């Protein structure tokens, strides 16, 4: 009766094994970019967007923090009078979430050379969570900016996803701009 394929179907997997491995980010997320956030030169942020409209705010490689290989001493989510750690949401509808706009400050990063940077949101939506692991391990931001070192997760309202992401640059556009040396 039922032909149980208990083993992995290696005929189908063979292709997978032989091809180059696209990362988790490559497979499920689109990278979109915001240049010179808050008109601060080179302070680019990279927003990873999932097909379900969730946005993960990360620091782009071009940002001085990463480009100049700074050592981060601490990250604080208490910034410009708002404490992102106070964000308490409940239910599927994420009631109680702090509402963010593209210019909303998410965190303040302090480096060992005393320089400070404020990372802003880049999109409009509800704040779902901030990456609390960065509090204890701020170096994760420099080590894995696109994965474990993410800053925050934001959920744009249903219907607003297109609107709030249309001004972000696609990866190709971004590469063009940044590689032309500006």
């Amino acid at each position, binding site marked *: *009766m039922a032909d149980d394929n208990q083993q992995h179907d290696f005929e189908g997997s063979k292709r997978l*094994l032989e091809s180059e*491995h696209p990362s988790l980010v490559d497979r499920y997320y689109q990278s979109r970019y915001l240049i010179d956030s808050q008109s601060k030169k080179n302070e680019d942020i990279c927003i990873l967007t999932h097909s*379900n409209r969730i946005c993960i705010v990360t620091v782009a490689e071009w940002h001085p923090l990463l480009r100049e290989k700074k050592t981060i001493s601490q990250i604080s989510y208490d910034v410009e009078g708002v404490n992102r750690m106070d964000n308490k*949401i409940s*239910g599927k509808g*994420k009631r109680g979430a702090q509402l963010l706009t593209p210019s909303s400050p998410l965190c303040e990063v302090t480096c060992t050379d005393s320089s400070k940077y404020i990372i802003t949101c880049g999109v409009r939506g509800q704040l779902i969570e901030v*990456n609390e692991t960065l509090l204890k391990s701020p170096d994760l931001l420099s080590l894995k900016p696109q994965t474990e070192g993410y800053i925050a997760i934001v959920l744009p309202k249903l219907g607003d996803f297109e609107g709030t992401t249309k001004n972000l640059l696609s990866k190709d556009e971004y590469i063009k701009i940044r590689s032309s040396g500006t």
Partner: protein
Amino acid sequence: MTAVPNIFSSDPTVTKEIVLLLTQDGLCPRCVLRFLGAGDVGLFRATSEELAQKVKSLVDDQDDIFSPLPCPACLGILQVYLEEGFLNRVVEAVRTSDHQFKNFICSLTTPVCSLLREHAILLLLKEKFKSLYEHREVEEISSVKDVWKWRSGPLLAAALDAPFELKSKFDIILNFTYEKSDKECTFLSYHSPEVFRKRKQQRSYGDTYTRANVARVLSKMTEGYFKRNYSLPKSNETNVCLCEDIRCVHDAVFVAGRYNKYSRTLSQTPWILDGGRKSESSVEEEICGPLKKKFLFTEQRFSSSGREDVDVRMLGKGRPFVVEMGDPHRVRLTPEDLAEIQQEINKSADVKVRDLQIVEKNDINKLKEGEIEKTKTYSALCWSKEPLSQEQLQKLQEVKDLVIYQKTPIRVLHRRPLATRERVVYSMSAEKVDDLHFTLNLLTQAGTYIKEFVHGDFGRTTPNLGTLTGVECDILELDVQSVELDWPPSLGDT
């Protein structure tokens, strides 16, 4: 000596007065008998003419005591709707609906204002015949629904050649409506406005005044208030119910089994987004298609003990599922019929089913038991950024009862609440496939997100395979090997 046994009054003179009072208000023979206190099923089996005679005999055979107009108590339900013409309509409706059934019941919905009518008539009787009716409750009066069924039950049973059975699974639903019902009830909302608060969205016509809340208010209202604000509407040709809706429904039948899914592009349930299909078919449709051809149901509800993603195969003995088939038009199916349906389903390359059998409604709980308590085993094809040594793979084997904390995966975070779930990975084993690939077998608690355990989901599942091996890992393919639930009972299918 009364022609009617077991009524409230034992004095023929008083009985006569009651009958004259009620017929003056236009009540029909059956309603007169009801309010006299009659409750014998046998009595109410008689024809309208016979009952009219019986009542006339209580008033010394006076003629013309009965009005030709609709009765204000039953609004015609015990008059025209007990005549041959209407009963033939019912029989016709049942034949047209083409249901298979071995017995039947009838459910009637009557207009809500009939509560007011019954109440008014009883109050009138309490006032005029205090000693007899003072302590009578409305429950002591035979209901319109019961009297209707007592008369029509045997007639319909003969015409349909099937018995009238109280516990029947086949229901002939008669909906009697009266358009002035709500208007008659409005005075109640002045008395108790908080009970009849209009909701933001009125779900359906007649939602404000329900039998439940009208009955509740009547029990709180004083007799004086009621009498001042309500009087029994005068009989009139148009003051009669309509029965435009005769619907036949058979109770749902439940079928259970276990399914295997061999496709990595098939969703479990129909996947429709923005008006278009995302997956051509679904496990649910592959199973319900052949079922529908034999059971002829109108609605289906597919439940299973957990779910797998579109790109995940379900191997081993399969996942337990139950299909609730709503209003099946065919119900006399044998195990052989089910075996045929199973064969039909198994023609599909993507879905296979075993142990297909009819189960009881309560058995669905067994399905959900598995979701929380039971364990699941998986097989995952994984990738690592750097080659893992034999020692590293061996170390995974030594992991026992590992507690992991999983924040709601990002891929479902848009439709699930944010939470951290504690889960247990009971055991693992790994086999190298090549330098950067290995097969990981796991036994975990139900509800564990395997993909996130492998790639870490941005560090939001900890510990994860990456933290355990010290190397970034990812998952290429996942198979569910087994769902440990001993239900439904095995039928010995190979």
